[in-house]
């Protein structure tokens, strides 16, 4: 799967199923699903006609993925051309909503299908998700917030790291990793339409503000805190996606300076994403045979990936089969 498809998937789960956007749900439509979301209990959907469905969740973690990033422009020092590595680990999710009670015995154990009331039967979509990705940027008391829930971040995955043989590209030109590093802006850019002019152009698409890193060894810094995320695409943490990135740093004099970076995160992420799918297939995992998902067991309750991911399946006015 190409990276743009991965991103499309991420966009879809972030904003709901686009297929229903052309034909919004009819508010008065029955039957309304009752969803049990009690921490520590199995997640369950019950319909007024007695049908019930439960959730099956499977996840796989990638190894630490190193991506080469090169310093291509620098106003902090005269040093550039250095190559560093950005290291991150990913968790990919597969989620199915499966019938546990259904008068049609052939449907039990099958993935629930849903559509908005009023749409024809061709509009039925499977209640399954295969595009979920998390990485380890959740740190301490500061929760990165790209949207409510921020499911793209995990507390259980190791924090992202930056590793360089040479740090003389940083203000003050240190030869090894400084004890701490603060960047006021870590932005990514891409070729995107300018909403004001309609012209496609290279533009900042967003990133992170107030990024703190701390030294874990002479060559490695770990991202320990991110004040906030911003992004015009409002989907995945764009801090790590764009091919062209810039770090805004402060010189010892207090003046602002900027380092330009070039990377191939998308290529590495695509390889990792596809590799995890291959691994799942090699393991011959059938989600339908897994135990029911216990709500809140994936992450902290407020950060529940499931809460965010499956929410779009339960609009009022949905019909299920």
């Amino acid at each position, binding site marked *: 799967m190409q990276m743009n498809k991965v991103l499309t998937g991420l966009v879809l789960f972030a*904003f*709901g199923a686009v297929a229903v*956007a052309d034909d*919004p749900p009819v508010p008065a439509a029955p039957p309304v699903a009752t969803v049990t979301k009690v921490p520590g209990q199995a997640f369950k959907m019950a319909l007024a006609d007695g049908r019930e469905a439960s959730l099956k969740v499977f996840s796989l973690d990638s190894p630490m993925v190193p991506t080469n990033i090169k310093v*291509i*422009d*620098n*106003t902090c020092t*005269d040093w*550039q051309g250095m190559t560093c590595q950005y290291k991150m680990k990913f968790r990919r999710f597969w989620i199915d909503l499966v019938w546990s009670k259904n008068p049609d015995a052939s449907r039990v154990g099958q993935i629930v299908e849903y559509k908005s009331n009023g749409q024809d039967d061709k509009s039925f979509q499977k209640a399954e998700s295969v595009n979920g990705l998390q990485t380890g940027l959740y740190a301490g008391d500061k929760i990165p917030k790209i*949207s*409510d829930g921020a499911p793209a971040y995990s507390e259980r995955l190791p924090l992202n790291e930056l590793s360089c043989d040479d740090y003389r590209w940083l203000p003050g030109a240190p030869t090894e990793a400084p004890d701490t590093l603060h960047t*006021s*802006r870590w*932005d990514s*850019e891409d070729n*995107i*339409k*300018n*909403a*004001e*002019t309609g012209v496609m*152009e*290279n*533009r*900042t*698409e*967003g*990133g992170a*503000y*107030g990024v703190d890193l701390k030294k874990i060894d002479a060559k490695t810094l770990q991202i320990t805190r991110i*004040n*906030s995320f*911003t*992004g*015009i*695409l*409002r989907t995945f943490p764009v801090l790590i996606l764009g091919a*062209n*990135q*810039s770090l*805004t740093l402060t010189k010892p004099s*207090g*003046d*602002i300076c*900027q380092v*330009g970076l*070039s990377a191939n995160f998308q290529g590495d992420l695509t390889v990792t994403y596809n590799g995890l799918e291959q691994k799942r297939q090699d393991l011959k995992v059938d989600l339908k045979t897994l135990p029911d998902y216990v709500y809140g067991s994936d992450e902290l309750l407020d950060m529940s990936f499931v809460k965010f991911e499956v929410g779009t399946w339960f609009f009022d006015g949905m019909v299920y089969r």
Partner: protein
Amino acid sequence: MKSLIFLAAILLSLASPASPTDLSNAGHLRKLSLHLRGVTPVPAEYAELQKLQKDTDIAAFFQRKADEYLNSAQARDRMVFRLSEKFQVETPAIDMNAYLSTDVSQRKYVTGIRQDSISDLFYRISSQNLSWDYLLTGKDYNLYPKNAFFDFGDINDFDFFRTVKPDLPENPSDFFLETTLADPMGVHFAADDLTVSGVLTTPRFLSRYNTTNVNKNRRRAAAVFRIFMCDPMFPIIPPPPDKKTADLPNAFDDIHGGATVTEQQLTAAMQVSSDARHGADPNCAACHVKLDPMGRTFQNIGVALNPEPARGALHFTKSDGTIFDQGLSGIGELGGQVAKQSEYLNCQIKWFWKEFIGVDVALSTDRENQLVEQFNKLSRKTNDFIKFLVSQPEFTKEPAKIQIISFDRVRPLLQRCDSCHSGGVDVPAFAGGVIDKTTLLKMRHRVNLPDSDHHRMPRDWARWDPKDLDAVKQWIEQGAVSPSGSIQLSPNDLAGAK
């Protein structure tokens, strides 16, 4: 013969209409309504005017109408359009048929024109008669929800401001815009806040003038210089021969080759520090010495505000030739500093003149300075100044006849050019009067540069009689008539190079 006919046609078009007299009262009313509201008066207004006999009654009528029009919904909407054009952000879409209906009861004013923080600010400038400086110094914003589906790819007010106001909610619009705010949500920043500065810190301004790794906010700084200080930011390095300056909207693109060079290619080409390169090359430094310090005040802002202000400076050569250099602790101080500059005042007066008097009425330097004084007396209040402007005699004057500048008039002046430029392959003998188009257009560009620009021609401009300088400028604008009477610059040449 053909060229003489062409010349006659140009001169006729420049010189019309012929009457130098005052507008009739009806014409005055029509102009007032059109300039302030964008629509013509209704018949009842003409009838009311016609009944008035005494000059004092007529004067009072126009005063009242100016107030009425300035406080109309159309005038406020119109200010949003005017400022959208000034800032080159997208103009709101409206139903023109409904908007311009001659039946007042059927007129539908723009609904939803205040759909985001920048258009709301434009609107309030008019509706609250705010100081014009508020465009630069405003610290209050109204936030509007956005439809997450249709506005996908464009940051909304809430996401933009929440980085500095963490208590703000998510964009209150849901995916289908089924829920909206009844009223916009106001956010307030302290007067000394370093993170916000009027229009400059709104999502749409920053989106319009976006930044990149290579650009480092210079596009944003160039927009500030262009819009607020009338610094044209003309490229010093000529664009590629197949491109005209007019084709390229941004100075950055002009200078760096426009669409012919991608920013990645540019980055790859700049294997030395970009700041060092720009500082070392005098052609680059001419602009970068202004752009880079101001750009740094934007440096921490990507697509949203940043709670950490970035230090920078306002640095430029003033019109009297002195260097202005003031350090800034953050973007929040930039607008206030710009608003203190005389270049800002003169630039804004020119804009008001263009919008409310018209480009066809000449504005002399003395008159411009008088108006600056009046602008200050009125505390730079927007509507108060507009009302003053439309009460001035120029508002009711027909345009003056254009004086034709013959070659004989400029020959001795061009000889002064030759005293430095001795003629040759690159520079012709000007006083001969036969000059190639490229050189004429270059002359036109150089003589119109601000006095502070070191490329301004003539170099000894301060010793020239302003009337002589104007004569040279007009001679070029009228087509640079040669000694034999032929037009050397066609209207197309002039329009294409503007």
